[in-house]
């Protein structure tokens, strides 16, 4: 290797690189920088020994401390669970009504219920629990199967028309049109009568014609005045809320060949505490009875 050149002006060695007569000075690193760099190298050795570092085929070397961010997360989650153990135990053991009366438990249950709702229920009932045609709005005060705490809990636990669960809520309205029980004109008349029961604009003559048909075919489940029957899961058809729409066409369609929604039973999927929290949450959305 040749002797290092020294720059005349600054007295500093050069690297030997030259561009158009400009030579690159070879100033030493600032000491503080060098020491920091050395310290980082020393630190790195320690890090490799104590922490997961070197990637292998399936995982990295574990390090002697046995640290992993996943284990830390589990630990933190367990800590949060432990800190809530008292509240969770209370939710588990206390009757729903008592939970609702306790300000702290109500808040805890609502928060837990909101989280569980966001994961499990929004897909059908919507993020604001407003539902959509065929999927009930949970905010209002119209309940097909009951809006008391226990009724909501049962619905959540066993679902609706969910064949896998023996205790599931079940109702089925005959397909009056498809199965030939009523003809087109009769279905039209009954539809008008239902509109009349609901206090909506209707054809008076048709509605009168439909009255007897309604009494013969529908009143058994929906009641004389169309108030429905929660025991049977027969909706109230005299109020302002319609699961499948309130036009004469939609009503006639439902009489011709009813659609039946299915809700899964959550009893097997969610733990009892979560179901109770969900019950409280749904109940507190505004329509709870």
């Amino acid at each position, binding site marked *: 290797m040749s002797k290092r050149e020294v720059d005349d002006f600054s007295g500093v060695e050069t690297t030997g690189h030259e561009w158009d007569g400009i030579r690159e000075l070879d100033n030493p690193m600032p000491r503080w920088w060098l020491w920091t760099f050395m310290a980082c190298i020393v630190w790195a050795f320690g890090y490799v020994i104590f922490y997961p570092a070197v990637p292998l085929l399936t995982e990295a070397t574990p390090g002697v401390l046995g640290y992993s961010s996943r284990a830390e997360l589990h630990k933190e989650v367990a800590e949060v669970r432990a800190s809530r153990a008292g509240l969770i135990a209370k939710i588990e053991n206390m009757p729903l009504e008592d939970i609702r009366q306790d300000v702290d438990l*109500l808040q805890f249950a609502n928060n837990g219920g909101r989280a569980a709702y966001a994961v499990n229920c929004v897909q059908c009932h919507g993020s604001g629990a*407003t539902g959509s045609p065929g999927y009930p*709005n949970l905010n*209002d005060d119209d309940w097909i199967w009951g809006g008391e705490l226990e009724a909501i809990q049962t619905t959540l636990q066993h679902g609706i028309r969910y064949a896998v669960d023996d205790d599931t809520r079940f109702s089925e309205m005959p397909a009056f049109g498809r199965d030939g029980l009523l003809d087109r004109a009769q279905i039209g008349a009954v539809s008008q009568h239902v509109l009349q029961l609901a206090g909506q604009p209707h054809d008076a003559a048709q509605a009168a014609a439909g009255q007897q048909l309604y009494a013969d075919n529908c009143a058994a489940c929906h009641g004389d005045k169309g108030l429905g029957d929660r025991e049977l899961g027969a909706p109230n058809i005299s109020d*302002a809320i319609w699961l499948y729409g309130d036009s004469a066409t939609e009503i006639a369609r439902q009489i011709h060949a009813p659609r039946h929604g299915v809700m899964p039973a959550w009893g097997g999927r969610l733990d009892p505490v979560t179901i109770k929290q969900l019950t409280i949450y749904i109940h507190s959305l505004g329509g709870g009875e």
Partner: protein
Amino acid sequence: MARIDDVDRIEVAPVNSRQHRSLYKARESIHPMRVAGVFRRLKWWIMGVLLAVYYVTPWLRWDRGEGMPDQAVLIDLEHRRFFFFFIEIWPQEFYYVAGLLIMAGIGLFLLTSVLGRAWCGYACPQTVWVDLYVHVERWLEGDRNARFRLDKAPWGGAKIRKRVTKYLIWLLIAVATGGAWVFYFADAPTLLVKLFTLEASSIAYVTVGVLTATTFVFGGFMREQVCTYMCPWPRIQAAMMDENSLTVTYQDWRGEPRGRHRKSADTSLLGDCIDCNQCVAVCPMGIDIRDGQQLECINCALCIDACNTVMTRTGGKLDLISYTTLKSYEANADGRPTLPLKKTIFRARTLVYAVLWSCIGLAMLFVLFTRDRLDVNVLRDRNPQYVLLSDGDIRNGYTVKILNMEGTERRVLLQLGDLPGGLMNVVGQDEWPSRTKEFILPADKVLQLRVFVTAPVAELSPGANNFRFSVTDLSGIEQAHYGAIFRAPEE
């Protein structure tokens, strides 16, 4: 002829003088010599008062009643409250803090335009703690020359002992400084016990640690470099000062040409400065005031004390270095008398600052004494916007927060205003819907309610309907309102 021979003349080059100043060389240590005099005494007094205020304040008690902290000055970050004697500030009243900062800023402008860098020289924490640290150093290692000798001395028993003792005492002061800081953020007596029993929060230890480290390093080692290189104030100063601001000034017109008066020499050609360099030796910033006004000078006036001591001893004329304004200095130099102090203090600029400062202060006091202690905030549900009920009525949901900013429990009435047929229901309360609801507000708390308001569709106009939530203190006169919106279907 002055007696001059007993003056301790020092051969010293100021490390930060104009000639020596360089950004690229390593720091040379400055060991300011001990000095006595008016300004030194003033500095001791100010230091004593400031340190006392800093250490004692968190221990003052103030009774606020049951369930409230009894610390006179407390920044309660956990509960988001600031307590200052009889004043309690909630986070939404943070503008008081902004106002105080503005007042502090304008106050500093006022102070600077009149007294120059009085803040730097007397009141700045950096100055106060460096003064304290230098004092400890002087007590253990002796005055200037002894300290220089010790610096140069080889490491040995005595040097190690002195240095270790010094660092330990510095560290103790630093820990006490950082330790006192955290007491402003929690109940001081409780926290003190917790700090020693290792039960305090980690953030408390980290804060104490960081402040200990900064105090130790800034006060013990960085010293004047903090002022010269880190602090923005010396730069801002230049814009704040004018020809009427008091500054530590060397009267060069009578001092120069400086020279060592000797009995033998002809002194008639020389100025008053005997070039004893005492002013340089006592300077904590390592400058020579005779170079004129400099960025480094913190106006601590110790050179005035040093010069006047020498002049008294030699029988020379006092105040060769003195607090003076640029105008007076120029007048003196031309042989005219010094301007009267009230003329330099009361001038348009300082009056504007003073009036502005007082106005902000008075406005804040007015707002403080007439501010609301009861408030209501309402958040309307956005999803769903409204709910159709089975009887055709419309329902909206709201989160209503009622703030009781007083230290006592209060009974309040929540009312609906301007919503015909509107009725409300509160989640968790099994009462009939009504237009008014009564609540007990816990002391110094926010009561959060889920409120459902129902109104018949016939009374509503499509879309947004304006109405009010009103809260009335049933045991007092205070009222609070919130203009809310009730949403009906758009059709």
